[in-house]
């Protein structure tokens, strides 16, 4: 179980990386390596060229500017876990990261790598969708952005061209007192979730939910934003009933069947976990302590 031969490149700046990527026919970008390296070792992929992004400092940053949080694509998951900016502005990322692999993989794995790998059950794409993230993309031809919603093209395939690199992910933080929860069910801690749910809520003084974001991972081929559920909880004066009703809508979502897990089971998990996440986020928003 050894990687096949390839040409290795470790450009020192983004521009060089873009140049290489434009030039090479069958190249793979190496970010944290926690998905590409196993695939190389198992010889599931045979790139002629591997372009390592780990020596490009400009891709590694966490910053807040003009009300937007911007994370460089090569920012490692462990850096996010320990970032005060993230803790202050989007704590749901930290809550989700507890479920992302293990210490050793979070020390290498990057946010950009996780988003581009786009495993349907992965936590970070689900959270990015919940946060309405904007994906910054660059190529020799120029720069562009994509809403996270439009980022997945197909199963495990982002909507980027072969010469493009994801450089950063950016989003507007929710208000300070928002409620949040990331809840998932996996076979063991650190495994990809069977279903994961990211919920963000703003609760008004009267207890009604004024703004909601509900996203399911693992149910469809890419994260699913549950707009119907969001509409049900938003503005309702009986939040508990609304949360139940909202969760129940997940039963109708078209869920994947695969060799190991049925769509019906995914739907059931989606219903149960969405309700748990909603309640947890709600309790946090109103200042209740949560387990």
């Amino acid at each position, binding site marked *: 179980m050894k990687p096949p031969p390839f040409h*290795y490149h470790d450009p020192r700046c983004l521009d060089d990386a873009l140049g290489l990527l434009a030039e090479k026919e069958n190249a793979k970008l190496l970010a944290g390596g926690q998905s590409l390296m196993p695939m190389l070792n198992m010889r599931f992929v045979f790139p002629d060229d591997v372009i390592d992004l780990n020596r490009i400092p400009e891709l590694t940053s966490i910053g807040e500017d003009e009300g937007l949080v911007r994370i460089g694509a090569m920012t490692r998951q462990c850096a996010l876990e320990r970032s005060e900016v993230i803790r202050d502005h989007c704590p749901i990322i930290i809550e989700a990261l507890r479920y992302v692999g293990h210490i050793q993989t979070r020390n290498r794995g990057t946010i950009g790598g996780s988003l581009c790998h786009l495993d349907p059950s992965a936590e970070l794409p689900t959270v990015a969708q919940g946060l309405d993230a904007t994906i910054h993309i660059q190529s020799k031809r120029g720069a562009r952005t994509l809403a996270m919603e439009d980022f997945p093209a197909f199963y495990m395939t982002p909507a980027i061209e072969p010469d493009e690199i994801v450089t950063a992910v950016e989003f507007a933080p929710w208000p300070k007192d928002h409620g949040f929860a990331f809840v998932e069910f996996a076979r063991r801690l650190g495994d990809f979730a069977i279903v994961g749910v990211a919920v963000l809520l703003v609760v008004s003084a009267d207890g009604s939910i004024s703004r909601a974001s509900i996203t399911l991972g693992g149910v469809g081929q890419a994260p699913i934003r549950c707009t119907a559920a969001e509409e049900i909880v938003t503005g309702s004066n009986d939040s508990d009933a609304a949360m139940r009703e909202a969760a129940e809508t997940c039963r109708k979502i078209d869920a994947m069947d695969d060799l190991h897990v049925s769509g019906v089971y995914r739907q059931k998990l989606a219903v149960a976990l969405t309700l748990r996440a909603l309640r947890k986020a709600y309790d946090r928003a109103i200042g209740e302590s949560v387990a």
Partner: protein
Amino acid sequence: MTDTRTISVTVNGSRHDLEIETRLTLADFLRHQISLTGTHVGCEHGVCGACTVLVDGQAVRSCLMLAVQADGAMVTTVESMTGENEQLHPLQQAFHDNHGLQCGFCTPGILMTLLEFLQHNPSPNETEVREALSGSLCRCTGYQKIVAAALDAASRLRQDVGKTAGRRES
């Protein structure tokens, strides 16, 4: 097609300048190029954790890194843990005293994982230790005595820090 590169890696304080194939994993570099066979390889797809080493102080799976990526880095392996006079590190001693190993194959990866973890979290509870160990597979022990060893080691290391601090004050 052989794609090679000369790299310079500092492993356990010793610098190694070597020409290697760029597809060589860090695990294979450590084991077979510079003969540090204490780092073990159990799955080569980043699940078992046996190959965990520290790169610039962080625990990583060395089967999921290319050796060329460690060019210029400081790598720490289990071979570095014993101190002067071959004295066991408190973490190693705790594993011995608590029967925290059986076949010993997963042990170096677990030691390296805990070495970093206990730096960040010197007073962990059992749940935190179990979460920290969740990326390391052991088929022999059922983990119980590994967890006990880790908690014992944390306590010993805290005492060591206390002693050092005490000496500084006096």
